[in-house]
């Protein structure tokens, strides 16, 4: 018995010292996968950038199923990773439960702003503001007077993209027709490019000539269908302009990479709890301009969008946030 206690004690001591030695930051990648060319990939790139600049290392795990959320988060905390960045609103209830159990571990969660823990940093993006800008660009590029939107899972967050997009498009052309479709109501909707492509074909047959995809992996199918039909598309989260060079009008950037990078750089010492808004002013959201879409974005378009950007930052234009009241005046 005493021997057993000693062994256990020694084991615990080893485990404790291991935690002390390992203060690497951790990243928990959500179901879309590390290379979704979108949301999760953006976070991974931010972590990679931190590693390249500081020479540090970080721990990462990729969720394979819904059931692993809590188990993965606890395992990461017990391995001693600190701070830990968690991707996505779907983890909100899990982190609400897990964070109080590890008071010494610092957590940061993306796309959540309604929790309250002393060791939790919540990073929320104003996607509606970025979507407003690309909505303007869509309306200016459209010749048919119809633009469209393909969302992933039908949730408030994605409606926020759709609503900002519609408002932006209507700011340019009040008569424009904005078609909004969602891929599904389960997490499978993030990963069904076949259905995404079919939705896009449907929208094209209704006259749309610019389609904006905010649908994770499903978006790959949307952009493909748009490129096949030779119409313009708009990517999301990461810069997706390169996927079909010359056929992607722009991408609504959600700088998840910056958010991840900032949390990693601040480390445990510089960690601040609370809610952080990533908006146009802080370059948390924006639109992508590079060599792949330089010919598609006219000077006039760029000037108009930059003016609107300044107006939003100055408070002269208010972009409606869908999740404030679960409705959208622009639909």
């Amino acid at each position, binding site marked *: 018995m005493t021997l057993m206690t000693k062994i256990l004690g020694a084991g615990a001591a080893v485990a404790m010292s291991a935690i002390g030695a390992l203060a690497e930051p951790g990243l928990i990648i959500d179901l879309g996968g590390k290379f979704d060319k979108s949301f999760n990939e953006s976070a991974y790139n931010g972590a990679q950038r931190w590693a390249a600049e500081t020479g540090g290392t970080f721990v990462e795990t990729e969720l394979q199923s819904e059931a692993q959320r809590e188990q993965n988060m606890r395992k990461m905390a017990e391995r001693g990773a600190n701070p830990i960045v968690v991707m996505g609103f779907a983890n909100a209830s899990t982190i609400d439960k897990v964070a109080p159990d590890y008071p010494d571990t610092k957590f940061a969660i993306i796309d959540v702003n309604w929790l309250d823990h002393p060791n939790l940093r919540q990073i929320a993006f104003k996607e509606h503001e970025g979507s407003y800008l690309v909505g303007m660009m869509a309306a200016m590029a459209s010749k048919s007077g119809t633009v469209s939107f393909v969302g992933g899972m039908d949730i408030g967050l994605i409606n926020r993209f759709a609503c900002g997009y519609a408002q932006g498009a209507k700011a340019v052309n009040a008569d424009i027709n904005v078609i909004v479709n969602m891929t599904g109501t389960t997490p499978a909707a993030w990963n069904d*490019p*076949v259905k995404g492509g*079919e939705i896009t074909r449907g929208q094209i047959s209704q006259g749309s000539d610019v389609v904006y995809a905010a649908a994770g992996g499903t978006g790959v199918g949307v952009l493909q269908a748009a490129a096949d039909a030779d119409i313009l598309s708009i990517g999301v989260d990461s810069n997706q302009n390169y996927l079909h060079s010359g056929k992607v009008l722009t991408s609504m950037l959600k700088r998840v990479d910056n958010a991840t990078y900032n949390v990693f750089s601040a480390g445990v010492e510089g960690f601040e709890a609370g809610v952080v808004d990533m908006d146009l002013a802080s370059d948390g959201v924006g639109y992508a301009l590079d060599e792949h879409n330089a010919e598609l974005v006219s000077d006039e378009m760029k000037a108009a969008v930059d003016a609107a950007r300044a107006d939003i930052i100055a408070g002269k234009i208010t972009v409606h946030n869908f999740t404030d009241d679960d409705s959208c005046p622009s639909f």
Partner: protein
Amino acid sequence: MDILIQLLDSTLRLSTPLLFACLAGLFSERAGIFDIGLEGKMLMAAFMSAAVAAVTGSVWLGLLGGMAASVVLSLIHGVASITFRGNQLISGVAINFLAAGLTVVVSKDWFKLGGDTPALGDARFPELALPFSEALADVPLIGRFYSDVLSGHAIIVYLGLATVALSWWVLFRTRFGLRLRAVGENPESVDTSGVSVIRMRFTAVVICGVLCGIAGAYLATGMSAGFRQNMTAGRGFIALAALIFAKWRPGMALLACLLFGFLQAVSIRFQTIEVGNFQIPSQFVEALPYILTVVILAGFVGKAIPPRAGGEPYVKER
């Protein structure tokens, strides 16, 4: 009118993978081998066809690769349930799990893209315009139907329609078909007449693999441009439902798949359907194939009687 044309156009595309998977199941189950591994075989074929097409740049080699991968899984099912007389349902479930895991693991290792295959540029099935489709476009009704609905699909779609007729002919007009059906109804009698039950069943299972392979290849290299993890998204199970709905008949299978494809097209096109003041959510339309199948199974609309020896391994009398 325009909307109906677009819906039918979309229906034809969405039905094709269902149709191939359904006919695959038809051959297998008519020979007495239940197959709920259609989903897994399609997924494996989707991955392999996209992988081969991405590496070689040839969509036809991709199709062959997809068929080969699917046949390998079929043979595993065959060995487990015919040779070793295992439970066919369990073997089918195992194949679904195997495919779901294996595709992602192998793809991550080969392409380092987190389970996806690289986007296929031109290595895809192009959309074909049928002859005279432009000339006939102005003919009212039939012209529109011909040029907008029938024309402009990948060759696999037309192959699917031809396969329905071929399946009917093989199953109901050839000696091979008679034997295959007999193996599923009454294997003892086939055995007595000196035909190997084991061999007939293996042949059916391989045909099933080939057809599933085409279904998967069309998903990855026709409808989309590459493989993504779990991209079959339940289509194998809808095909299985269609098979029961069709009461194991090729012609009815075509109708069932077109119906289920149409329901998918409707749910994609209309997020909510309003009937008077009542809103039908698209989820209900998507769930309709399953609901209809249950209704059929419950015996409300005719009777769906599976092949009599289905699900039972054949044991020669000792």
